[in-house]
């Protein structure tokens, strides 16, 4: 660990604190150390991380299943930025705006709702169409006068945030400077193009949230490895053994695990319909990937899941999980208990992981911990993430 304190790291005009330590994360895995402690426990590092990791990249902030009906709007606050996500009645498109009125900065949407017409600011009633255009500035030129010669309406539209929808997930790029989502994520889009088909979520049994007292990166790291399966998920291991797993390693993009023994079996003796036109390898395969920074993904022949990690504080996250099926029939009452069983299975897995994520967070306060060593065989996917993260900071 560096001899400099966190204050000195930030004061010496160093744009990136603990640069030397971060440089160790991008060494070959045999030589590498993990990301230094401070990036898990220090608020200043988290603020920096917000600017470099979260504001400049494509980040998952919510699910489209909350916006099925045209006119539906939902406020989402992610890392303190207030967003409003809206499916416009005009063209049925989902757009993301900053949830703020260009007049005096009032938060526009407080609760999810279905709009009949314009968004009306609750403060002085300036109005915005569902595509974000200003459509009224009441009394702006004095009582009963709704324009002013020096104020141009075009300057009063809502601030749109660059967004993209994939697999039912709403992604944003806050600074608007990232390359297009399809360009950045070309390799995963290609990898899973067979799953590019309609997906269905019941919005009840198949949705759940967990709060975990650990840094968001630890949730990512833990998901990326199969190494812990025999001890942390003894149940899971009984039908998906460690040796049935294979690393997914794609430096600069994503990583994760393949399970070669995926078996869909439920006590209800019911099976979900498989996704259409999958290749035979998917008969027994599951793929578990993290799209950096904060989206955990699972793909199997009969269901998919998405888990959004929302950093709340240096040592706290909220995980929102949604499970999706291949056919609207799978959402019927007669599949309800099977859906519930499936959701509970995943919930158990994610709950079993809480202990280690929280334990690693506590471990990050040990001054002697140098970011840790990696198993060159078992920890490759974790190293892919550390390499991605450290490079983003070092290149900033």
């Amino acid at each position: 660990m560096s001899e400099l304190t966190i204050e000195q790291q930030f004061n010496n005009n160093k744009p990136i604190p603990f640069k030397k330590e971060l440089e160790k994360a991008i060494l070959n895995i045999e030589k590498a150390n993990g990301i230094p402690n401070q990036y898990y426990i220090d608020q200043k590092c988290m603020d920096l991380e917000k600017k470099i990791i979260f504001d400049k990249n494509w980040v998952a902030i919510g699910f489209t299943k909350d916006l099925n009906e045209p006119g539906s709007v939902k406020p989402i606050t992610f890392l303190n930025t207030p967003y409003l996500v809206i499916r416009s009645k005009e063209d049925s498109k989902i757009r993301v705006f900053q949830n703020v009125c260009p007049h005096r900065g009032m938060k526009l949407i407080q609760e999810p709702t279905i709009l009949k017409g314009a968004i009306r600011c609750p403060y002085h009633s300036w109005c915005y169409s569902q595509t974000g255009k200003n459509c009224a500035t009441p009394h702006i030129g004095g009582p009963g006068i709704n324009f002013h010669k020096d104020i141009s309406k075009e300057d009063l539209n809502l601030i749109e945030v660059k967004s993209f929808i994939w697999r039912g997930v709403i992604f944003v790029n806050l600074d608007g400077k990232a390359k297009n989502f399809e360009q950045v994520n070309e390799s995963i889009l290609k990898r899973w193009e067979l799953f590019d088909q309609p997906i269905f979520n019941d919005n009840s049994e198949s949705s759940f949230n967990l709060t975990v007292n650990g840094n968001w990166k630890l949730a990512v790291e833990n998901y990326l490895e199969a190494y812990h399966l025999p001890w942390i998920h003894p149940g899971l291991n009984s039908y998906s053994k460690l040796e049935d797993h294979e690393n997914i390693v794609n430096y600069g993009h994503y990583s994760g695990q393949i399970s070669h023994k995926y078996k869909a079996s439920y006590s209800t003796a019911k099976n979900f319909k498989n996704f259409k036109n999958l290749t035979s390898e998917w008969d027994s395969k599951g793929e578990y990937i993290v799209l950096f920074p904060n989206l955990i993904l699972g793909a199997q022949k009969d269901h998919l899941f998405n888990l959004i990690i929302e950093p709340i504080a240096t040592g706290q996250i909220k995980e929102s999980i949604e499970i999706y099926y291949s056919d609207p029939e799978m959402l019927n009452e007669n599949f309800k208990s099977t859906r519930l069983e499936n959701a509970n299975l995943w919930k158990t897995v994610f709950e079993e992981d809480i202990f280690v994520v929280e334990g690693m967070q506590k471990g990050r306060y040990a001054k002697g911990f140098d970011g840790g060593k990696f198993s060159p065989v078992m920890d490759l996917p974790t190293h892919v993430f550390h390499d991605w993260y450290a490079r983003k900071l070092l290149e900033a």
Partner: protein
Amino acid sequence: MDDISKLDTDITEAFQKKQMKKVCSLYFEAANYFENKSDIEAACFFYTQALVMALEENHDLKEKIIHKLEKYGRNQDTTLN
């Protein structure tokens, strides 16, 4: 002046109950009232109040209100979407 103080009470009540469609038509009524009395300032104030509620509620009165405000030179290039 009785109808206008009744309108006033009704508007406050509708506001409290969040019946915005009703708020819109009550403002519209108030605007008409003043327009009939040739008090164009007051009329345009209330047409404006009615306008924002009409936009929010996608109320049928929308076009009529815009027409009035444009007629009195109080709205310019009103865009609805």
